[in-house]
């Protein structure tokens, strides 16, 4: 006998098999992607521009586009989202306009990403005249990530023990000193986790960018936010949707690159969290 927790029975066996199938399904997804991408993945593929020939094409522009989008999204969504969360939790009085903003933001986290594309087209591409550019894509993805960042940052801030705030206020600290010295350090790890989750979701999205008018054929890598909108997810879509089988490998290659970008984003967040923990103790 091992622990009582490990004892099996009919229900346990069935559940175990299903859990195994779930894990197998995940491995299948990554496996299929890796196998299909195997033939195209090399350094040239990562940096080459698009080509009409499947065996010559590369993801240079799409990769650069996704990196631009990640930076723009983080640059817009993180400060605004975290700042909003701090304002709502530490400065705003209960009720009133601030409460409405908080509630609406929480609900907008459930709005499908593709809808942000529709709004982004009207607001950024046409309304503000950005055209189908990386900047318009970054703004749209930032709007998409914003509710997630706000909701998770608020949760992290709320989890800071009240005693910590009161102890600081009780010792004559000003509100900013309490926020800067106690609340933000204690909530930092949660804020980073949430921001990273928001960024990961946004950067992996293809649907809103498709609606904005992302291009999937570019002969040069974008060098500024004003350059045409292109990205890895929309590249995966464009190559998958083509009927020619030969682009299937390129699509898988772009997918692998996308997963790697997301992995790097998460590793950076992990490293930042480690550092924060090291500093706070």
């Amino acid at each position, binding site marked *: 006998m091992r622990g009582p927790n490990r004892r099996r029975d009919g229900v346990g066996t069935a559940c175990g098999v299903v859990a195994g199938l779930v894990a197998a399904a995940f491995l299948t997804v990554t496996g299929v992607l890796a196998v299909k991408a195997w033939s195209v993945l090399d350094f040239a593929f990562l940096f080459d521009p698009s080509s009409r020939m499947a065996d010559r094409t590369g993801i240079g522009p799409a990769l650069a586009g996704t990196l631009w989008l990640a930076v723009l999204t983080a640059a817009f969504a993180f400060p605004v989202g975290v700042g909003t969360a701090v304002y709502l939790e530490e400065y705003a*009085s*209960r009720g009133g306009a601030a409460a409405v903003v908080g509630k609406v933001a929480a609900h907008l986290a459930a709005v499908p990403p593709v809808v942000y594309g529709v709004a982004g087209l009207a607001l950024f591409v046409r309304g503000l005249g950005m055209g189908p550019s990386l900047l318009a894509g970054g703004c749209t993805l930032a709007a998409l990530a914003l509710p997630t960042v706000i909701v998770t940052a608020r949760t992290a801030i709320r989890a800071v*023990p009240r*005693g*910590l*705030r*009161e*102890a*600081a*206020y*009780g*010792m*004559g*600290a*000003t509100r900013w*000193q309490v926020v800067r*010295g*106690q609340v933000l*350090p*204690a909530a930092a790890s949660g804020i980073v986790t949430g921001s990273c989750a928001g960024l990961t979701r946004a950067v992996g999205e293809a649907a809103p960018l498709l609606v904005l008018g992302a291009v999937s054929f570019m002969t040069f890598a974008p060098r500024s936010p004003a350059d045409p909108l292109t990205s890895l997810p929309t590249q995966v879509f464009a190559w998958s949707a083509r009927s020619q089988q030969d682009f299937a490998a390129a699509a898988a290659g772009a997918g692998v690159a996308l997963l790697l970008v997301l992995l790097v984003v998460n590793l950076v967040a992990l490293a930042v969290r480690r550092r924060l923990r090291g500093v*706070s*103790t």
Partner: protein
Amino acid sequence: MSAVSAPRAEVPALAADDLTVRFGGRTALAGVTLEVPRGRVVSVIGPSGGGKTTLLRAFNRMNELVPGVTTTGTVRFNGVDLHGEEVDPVEVRRRIGMVFQQATLFPRSIFDNVVFGPRAGGHAGELQELAEEVLVAAGLWSEVAEDLDRPAMELSAGQQQRLCIARTLALKPEVLLLDEPTSALDPAATARIESLIHSLRRDHTIVLATHGRRQAARLSDFTAYLAGGELIEYGPTEALFTNPRDRRTESYLTGRIE
């Protein structure tokens, strides 16, 4: 080096007049009027939920940090209305220091905890000296002198509470508000805190909320009995304990109300 230009002795350090505090619909303090004489120790006793903590927090404007609170009536410090137009709550909390029931240390070193207040206030002088001075005053110096850089969380519960007192002393407050400082401690640690309070009374006006009737009797000059948000009785400790005027006070003191 008192920071106060000696107010007239007859002006009480703290005076609440018809003080009422409500949290949402709940009344925590109902029309409390009481004076805390300068340089004395006043205990506030009474059942849990009777308003002890709320009264202490009213004395340094901590209640207003709770959403949905309403305060009416006045609180005066050295004769100055705490809610007056020009009064800065941050300044109030520096002059009227508070030690909380639950010792909440900042997740930093012992030293950083002690000098938190002075640093927050932009203290210009030598922090090392100040830290030693208040740690000595709090009776903690001999135990922590060697490892001021250790995380404060590693101290024992009793030491943590004394560190909380030390860091409040570092503000050089005129008044100390102690909210059940020994409720979470064992008898030995409690005894140390009590002798510490006894030594602090020389330079401070002290308001001590306590659950322990005997602690109040041992430490204070005056005692207030607070129940259901009302001030039932207030007077010299000895008189209140030996000859309570109100039946409710008497039942509490004899242990019939908890």
